[in-house]
């Protein structure tokens, strides 16, 4: 109780003690030294109020202020008493409470922001993945379109080859033999008599041969020149070789790969008809184009 202190001071009539008494009376008759608990409470309140808690939880800071005011009032009423100390203790806790609540809210805001960032990142990633997927799908579609185009082109090439073969069949004989497919063209259709330069009319037949064989690049083509038995053998061998070569040159010049086309002069050695008749001799004067599978090495 504050009366106790002033009366004990009154015993010492020194100027210092008198001024202390005066200060004591003016201060509301408590001792001028607040207890540690009150100093701690005031310091903590100052710290908390100066920090972010004032913006985040102003109501809780206000409650802490009121609690501190109550402790201060108790101190001015009853000085360094148990009541002052206990109220200061509570005021300290109220300030700490405000700080803890503020920190909690900050942490929650931080967590929410992080979660929003994560969501945004996920959405962005998803959008990018979708974009990429769409691009790849477009790419696939393009490739499929390309493939379809190529397939179509191949089908058309095969169709043209088939048509060419059918056309060829009108002007040549086409047979399947054990040595391969044999296209037999009459010498009279291809060459002037005794010559190895192609007739202009021969071109359309040979064009059909090129078209028909273009779509089968895996096969070997042997061009054989044949003559009838009339005249010297060496002459006939030479003529048939030159004629076979002329046909080869034309075919290779119009698109067949050189490495699969060969030319050979057979002369009179393999007749297909009786050389004794004019018709037979005419039939023997021919060029055979033999289309066979590649030789097994």
């Amino acid at each position, binding site marked *: *109780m504050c*009366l*106790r202190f002033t*009366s*004990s001071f009154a015993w010492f009539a020194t100027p210092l003690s008198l001024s202390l008494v005066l200060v004591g009376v003016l201060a509301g008759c408590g001792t001028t030294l607040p207890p540690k608990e009150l100093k701690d409470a005031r310091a903590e309140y100052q710290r908390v109020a100066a920090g972010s808690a004032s913006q985040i939880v102003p109501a809780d800071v206000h409650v802490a202020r009121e609690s501190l005011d109550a402790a201060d009032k108790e101190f001015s009423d009853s000085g360094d008493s*148990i*009541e002052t100390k*206990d*109220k200061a*203790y*509570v005021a300290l*806790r*109220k300030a*700490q*409470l405000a700080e*803890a*609540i503020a*920190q*909690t*809210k900050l*942490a*929650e805001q*931080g*967590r929410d922001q*992080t*979660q929003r*960032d*994560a969501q945004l*990142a*996920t959405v962005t*990633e998803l959008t990018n993945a979708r974009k990429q997927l769409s691009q790849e799908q477009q790419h696939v579609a393009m490739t499929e379109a390309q493939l379809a185009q190529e397939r179509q082109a191949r089908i058309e090439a095969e169709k043209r080859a088939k048509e060419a073969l059918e056309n060829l069949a009108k002007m040549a004989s086409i047979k399947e033999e054990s040595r391969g497919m044999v296209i037999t063209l009459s010498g009279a259709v291809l060459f002037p008599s005794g010559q190895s330069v192609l007739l202009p009319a021969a071109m359309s037949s040979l064009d059909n041969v090129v078209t028909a064989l273009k779509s089968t690049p895996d096969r070997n083509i042997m061009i054989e020149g044949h003559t009838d038995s009339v005249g010297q053998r060496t002459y006939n061998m030479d003529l048939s070789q030159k004629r076979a070569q002329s046909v080869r040159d034309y075919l290779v010049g119009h698109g067949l790969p050189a490495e699969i086309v060969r030319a050979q002069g057979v002369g009179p050695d393999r007749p297909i008809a009786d050389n004794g008749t004019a018709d037979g001799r005419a039939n023997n004067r021919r060029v055979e184009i033999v289309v066979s599978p590649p030789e097994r090495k």
Partner: protein
Amino acid sequence: MRIHKGLSLPVVFLAAAACGGVPPPTQHMANAEAGIRAAREVGAQTDPQGALHLSLAQEEFDKAKALVSDGDNKHADLVLSKAEADAELAMAEAREAQARAQAQQAKDQIKMLKNARQ
């Protein structure tokens, strides 16, 4: 010690009040007990700061009970205020620790996601 006459009456009154004029703080005790229980339920004892203030609250509560059985209701009331304040703080500290842990968890997750993408 000489006491001014004019002030003797209040002194007597105060003395009388300290000796049993104040009723036992049963409501205050119930509130304080509820506050301590609530702090426990939130898990205050798992956080160092929370555990500290929780045990302080319990000590103060027990001290208040002793004061009440001694008849010092006024002092008991004040001690109960301390117990309540400590229990409240313990609960807030438990919540703070949990919020911090969640914030850290969210950060760790986003880090993991970033690493997984690379």
